[in-house]
């Protein structure tokens, strides 16, 4: 492969990985800290995408969409946690799977009833319009670079909050020993709601930010859900750092898989996950046992 194009493919892989991280970060938070398998995580991504479509169709601006849509998504996460998820904390994983699966069905139907089944587009914000010329045939959309930038900022923000703030400390402690944290006077219930709502918000934000790139249509939630789980598992459940590395790995594997081994490209991501799990059964940075 031509070195220039090799580098561009690396860029493609990294950029895709960063976006995947944004989507998966919410899942690893909810899964790692709340110990809840939320199959409806992809649905929050879809909610974000449709909110972006709805707001930009009316206001013409993605900024307004994010400003308006994000609080709505957080509120939705809040409501769902209070109404349903909090009953799942003591239940086993399978029950969580079943209930959140029911949620997916409801979300999908609601989407179909409200928005219909046609594909929709969301326009790129004006300052990010246009592309940078890389070679005589290939240009790189500026918006993609902007999205990568946003993801990087969010990574750093998340790591900062989790590692360096008191809130992050409570969250980490709560994931290890819920009762102890409660005895220490922290309202674990509120903490859980906050974590879940944040997870939902992150997924929705990813949906909004990615909408101009991926177009908005039914089913985008399910497709992204599987990849999210793969990333969370490769990285190790509950580890933001792990999810970040895993997302980059998956992005690169997917990109190079398509180009280098197209015959097996469909399986490349799963093969990577299988290989890693067989080497380190708890994922890259997961807690052993």
């Amino acid at each position, binding site marked *: 492969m031509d070195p220039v194009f090799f580098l561009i493919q690396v860029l493609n892989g990294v950029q895709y990985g960063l976006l995947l991280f944004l989507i998966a970060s919410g899942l690893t938070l909810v899964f790692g800290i709340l110990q809840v398998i939320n199959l409806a995580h992809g649905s929050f991504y879809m909610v974000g995408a449709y909110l972006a479509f709805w707001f930009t169709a009316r206001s013409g601006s993605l900024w307004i969409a994010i400003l308006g849509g994000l609080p709505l998504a957080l509120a939705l996460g809040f409501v769902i946690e209070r109404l349903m998820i909090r009953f799942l904390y003591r239940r086993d994983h*399978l029950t969580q799977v*079943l209930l959140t*699966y029911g*949620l997916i*069905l409801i979300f999908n139907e609601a989407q179909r009833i409200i928005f219909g089944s046609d594909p929709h587009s969301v326009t790129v914000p004006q300052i990010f319009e246009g592309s940078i010329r890389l070679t005589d045939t290939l240009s790189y959309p500026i918006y993609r670079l902007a999205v990568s930038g946003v993801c990087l900022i969010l990574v750093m923000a998340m790591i900062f909050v989790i590692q360096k703030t008191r809130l992050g400390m409570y969250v980490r402690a709560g994931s290890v020993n819920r009762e102890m944290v409660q005895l220490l006077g922290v309202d674990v219930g509120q903490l859980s709601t906050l974590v879940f709502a944040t997870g939902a918000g992150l997924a929705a934000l990813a949906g909004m930010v990615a909408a101009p790139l991926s177009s908005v249509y039914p089913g985008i939630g399910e497709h992204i859900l599987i990849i999210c789980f793969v990333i969370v598992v490769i990285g190790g459940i509950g580890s933001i750092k792990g999810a970040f590395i895993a997302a980059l790995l998956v992005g690169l594997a997917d990109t190079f898989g398509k180009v280098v081994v197209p015959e097996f490209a469909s*399986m490349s991501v799963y*093969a990577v*996950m299988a290989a890693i799990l067989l080497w380190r059964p*708890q994922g890259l940075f997961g807690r052993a046992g």
Partner: protein
Amino acid sequence: MSRTPRILAWTALAAVILLAFLPQFADRYYIQLFTRIMSSAIFAMSLGLLVSGAGLVSLGHAMFFGLGAYLLVFFSPGDEGAAIWWALPATMAAAAIAALIIGALAVRTSGIYFIMLTLAFGEMLFYLFHDSKLLGGSDGLYVNFRPTVAAFGRDLLSLDDRPTLFYVALVLMVATYLGIGMLLKAPFGRAILGIRVNEQRMKALGYNVYAYKLVVFAIAGALAALAGFLYATQYRSVNPVLFSWRESGLVLMMVILGGLRSRLGPAIGAFALVLVQEALQAVTDDWLIAFGVFVIVVVLLLPNGLAELAGKLTPDRLAKAANDG
């Protein structure tokens, strides 16, 4: 898994007897619908053995169902049906071998990692069949002639006859249930249950936990392939989506819905899932939402699945409720 409570066992027996008479009075459509439900029940029971029996939650179990379906296609010559006497055992054996190979890798992990690993293998098999023209591609393959049940040159049964296929499915379903029951009562089964309850202790007692898990994984795979074989016999068309995680998720739903504590749970789940969907579809166009709500309600109100309903409806409970109410 606990012993089936008396009332549940009697209800199940009554249901089987009712099913036995179904072809006499029901429309052809319902005969083939219940045939489908019964092959789903076998599939669900095979997963139930893994999940409730051994504690291994697989999100890729459909890969063995799909394998069973596709193997029937490969074993069927183009101009006549395959002889069931060898086609069915060969299918189950091949699936068991595939399960041993995949299980050898997968069973080394546990919990959520096992779930994801089985998912990964399932998806890899899906793409293998979906992407490859040789294996049929995305539009699937066909069975031109159904398997023959013949001996000494004469046809014993014609699987083209719907009631006949129905009874074959019924017999196989009951046999699967009884077979799993016997397995779990045998020393092997007791060890499996012990592993689910406390793996560490079993290891300490000297059991080769890995080997036991591997064998039960293979048995479950073979049974799933049996269900797939039945499916392909009934419909004669197979598609790679049979391998997909959606199908694996669906059968897992049946097992959970029916109840993880009951050996009848998976079968109950299979019947309930399909029949509730049929009923909802008859009533409203937006049945998917109603179904989603149904699932959520069951989860929140019946932590042990639908099988729990029977426990709640025992005579003394009903009497108590009548007194209280």
